[in-house]
């Protein structure tokens, strides 16, 4: 008898354990299994009930909840999936913004710190309508991969006068991507951490060598020559950014769209400009204008800019300046200039890489206006300024001041109308990209004698 009771108890424990392990957490306030969740209790949360998942997904009007910023959101609960950790500067600022929002509106906001891997879990979470009201990710991914699950922010953005508090380039770009994907424009996110690419340089080393910012490739080669004569290595390069660097160079010879087509279908040798671009890069490499050891393993080469006074420039996105400052523990005098154009290709000389991490609101969020107000608090005004200062990034609100490490970036972003994509089309063929990238790294390693050899090697991959 005792054995029977014991056996039944054991069976019950097993079943209960298994049931507990498989509990579905989609219905209510989701709790992170990883334990990286921070819950923010408002000082007067009252008897607010979890709003649960809305059944009327797709209804973006949400008129009942719409209230102007600064309204009382007593009883409103929001869940915010962040792509940062709460120990990072960005996470700390978001935390401060949420604290402020709760204090001012009475809402309760739960932040779940998902880190960069958020991209791997977001789609499934959105498909299953997990309790997420707003989340952060790359704005292209939002506009293309999550477009069906995010709210159209057009009306709320217009009412908030967001156009005057943001860069036009992100607005137009995300609408175009959404149209590509669904056939109609959609305002899918608000930019939180803008990025811009170009050549970042140390102003003090330029001054020391007595050189000015170049605008053409010929001038750039002259600048490199003078820097080298003054004992300064011109350009740092890590293999992680080889395609970004050469993509920028190639985009001055060949339109990005054509690069994308060649990436998909081949035909690099048939385009004389590819060989010309590679030839000029080979000339640059053979002249010894790459820093010692470049192309190096990330982040060794970029660190040399901060660790020594011997390397002047790097082709990258703006976050590199903060990375170098943080690693070296110094505040360098950074400047930015757009990648130089080449003679006879003036129409291709002005474009720059631009990207952003953005905040989107789910289309099943029951309090879209509250979520939007929180997003606006983060991407504009004093919180945005705090984010720019503490994380060393470009302010999302152009009215704010860029920190010293981001000097010149706001101007470049404002002037950019048709941004270049990451790697400027070389990465368009995602499947083949690692092999294409290897050829580009080999170009910088000096493995190709001529540009024609390089183009032929690329075509050999198809």
């Amino acid at each position, binding site marked *: 008898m005792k054995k029977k009771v014991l056996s039944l108890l054991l069976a019950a424990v097993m079943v209960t354990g298994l049931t507990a392990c498989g509990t579905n957490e989609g219905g209510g306030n989701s709790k992170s299994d990883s334990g990286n969740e921070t819950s923010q209790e408002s000082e007067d949360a009252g008897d607010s009930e979890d709003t649960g998942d809305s059944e009327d997904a797709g209804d973006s009007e949400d008129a009942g909840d719409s209230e102007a910023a600064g309204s009382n959101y007593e009883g409103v609960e929001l869940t915010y999936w962040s792509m940062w950790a709460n120990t990072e500067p960005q996470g700390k600022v978001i935390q401060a913004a949420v604290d402020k929002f709760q204090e001012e509106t009475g809402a309760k906001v739960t932040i779940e710190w998902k880190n960069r891997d958020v991209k791997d879990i977001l789609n499934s979470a959105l498909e299953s309508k997990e309790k997420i009201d707003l989340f952060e990710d790359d704005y292209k991914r939002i506009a293309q991969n999550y477009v069906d699950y995010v709210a159209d922010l057009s009306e709320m953005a217009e009412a908030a006068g967001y156009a005057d508090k943001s860069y036009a380039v992100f607005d137009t770009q995300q609408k175009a991507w959404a149209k590509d994907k669904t056939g109609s424009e959609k305002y899918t996110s608000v930019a939180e951490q803008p990025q811009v690419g170009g050549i970042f340089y140390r102003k003090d080393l330029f001054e020391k060598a007595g050189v000015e910012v170049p605008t053409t490739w010929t001038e750039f080669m002259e600048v490199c020559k003078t820097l080298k004569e003054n004992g300064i290595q011109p350009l740092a390069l890590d*293999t992680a950014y080889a395609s970004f660097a050469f993509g920028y160079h190639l985009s001055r010879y060949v339109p990005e769209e054509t690069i994308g087509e060649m990436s998909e279908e081949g035909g690099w040798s048939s385009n004389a400009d590819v060989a010309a671009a590679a030839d000029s890069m080979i000339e640059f490499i053979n002249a010894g204008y790459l820093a010692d050891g470049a192309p190096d393993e990330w982040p*060794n080469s970029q660190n040399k800019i901060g660790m020594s006074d011997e390397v002047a420039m790097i082709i990258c996105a703006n976050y590199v300046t903060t990375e170098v400052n943080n690693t070296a523990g110094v505040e360098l005098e950074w400047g930015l200039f757009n990648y130089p154009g080449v003679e006879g290709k003036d129409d291709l000389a002005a474009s720059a890489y631009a990207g952003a991490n953005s905040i989107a609101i789910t289309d099943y969020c029951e309090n879209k206006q509250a979520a939007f107000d929180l997003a606006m608090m983060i991407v504009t005004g004093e919180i945005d300024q705090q984010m720019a200062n503490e994380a060393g990034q470009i302010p999302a609100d152009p009215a704010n001041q860029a920190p010293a490490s981001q000097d010149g970036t706001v101007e470049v972003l404002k002037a950019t109308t048709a941004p270049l994509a990451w790697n400027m089309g070389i990465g368009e063929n995602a499947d083949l990209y690692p092999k294409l990238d290897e050829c580009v790294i080999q170009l910088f*390693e000096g493995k190709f004698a001529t540009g024609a050899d390089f183009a032929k090697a690329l075509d050999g991959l198809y």
Partner: protein
Amino acid sequence: MKSKKNRLFIIAFTLPCALSLFIMYLYPIMRTVIMSFFGVESVTARTSEWSFNGVANYQKIFSSPTFHQAIKNMLLIWVVGGILVLSFALLFAVILTSGIRFKKFFRAAIYMPNIISAVALATMWIQYIYNQEYGLLNKFLEALGLEGRNWMGTDMKFWAMLVAFVFGAVGYYMLIFINGIERISGDIFEAATIDGANKIQQFFSITMPLLRSIFKTNITFWSINCISFFLWSKMFAPVNTEASTVVPVVYLYDTVFGTTGNVTRDAGAGAAIGVVLSLFIAIVYFIMNKVIKDDDLEF
């Protein structure tokens, strides 16, 4: 009557486990196999959004130069890395079971890389051993009056990664070998010594044949380890996937979740890669069972 009760108890105890296995393993496997024949963008997309693709996903991956490179890298890790790891592991195991002094210290020292995070281990190799400027290798070459080189260049990166991985893996397989060797009775070696067999003859005529089942275990573990190889590849190419270090699981990850700057996803092709890898493991296991028979010796 009693037998009926027993059956009920057996069912009561096995049902939760069987259900868990079905839900957690069998269902995902079946779904993945079916998905590999469909065009699916998101890995969790509803089946109503799937479109039948026939074998197009398999054609896509088998015609991809990146997949070829990934398979080539995996096979090199499996064969070259396997020979190195199992050889060193066996050598160390034999030495450590031969009665040397400080056996426990050496065993702990060789096993230690297994208890250190692979991320820390990879960082150590990349920054302190392979670094061009201050890395151990180039400093050593410099001391000999030779010129250093870029160990992380496109021509050397794979081998640099493999050596680092092998260094971290030896201890695990060594412990399994030690366990196998210690299982062999000392009487056998004693008898062989009396018969005039030296240590080398004893190794090839006694130790090796009696370690057959251990070899099979180690080769199976090593195969699974190689097929699920991911972290080291990511550590040696942290920003973008690189051809020199790409392996099938990294290729699968990029195919399913997209890459830096490219948001294209193809969960159907990702499922096809998963199926191919599973078949690879099954084939290796089948061959191991056929080639290495461990049931013909008793001791």
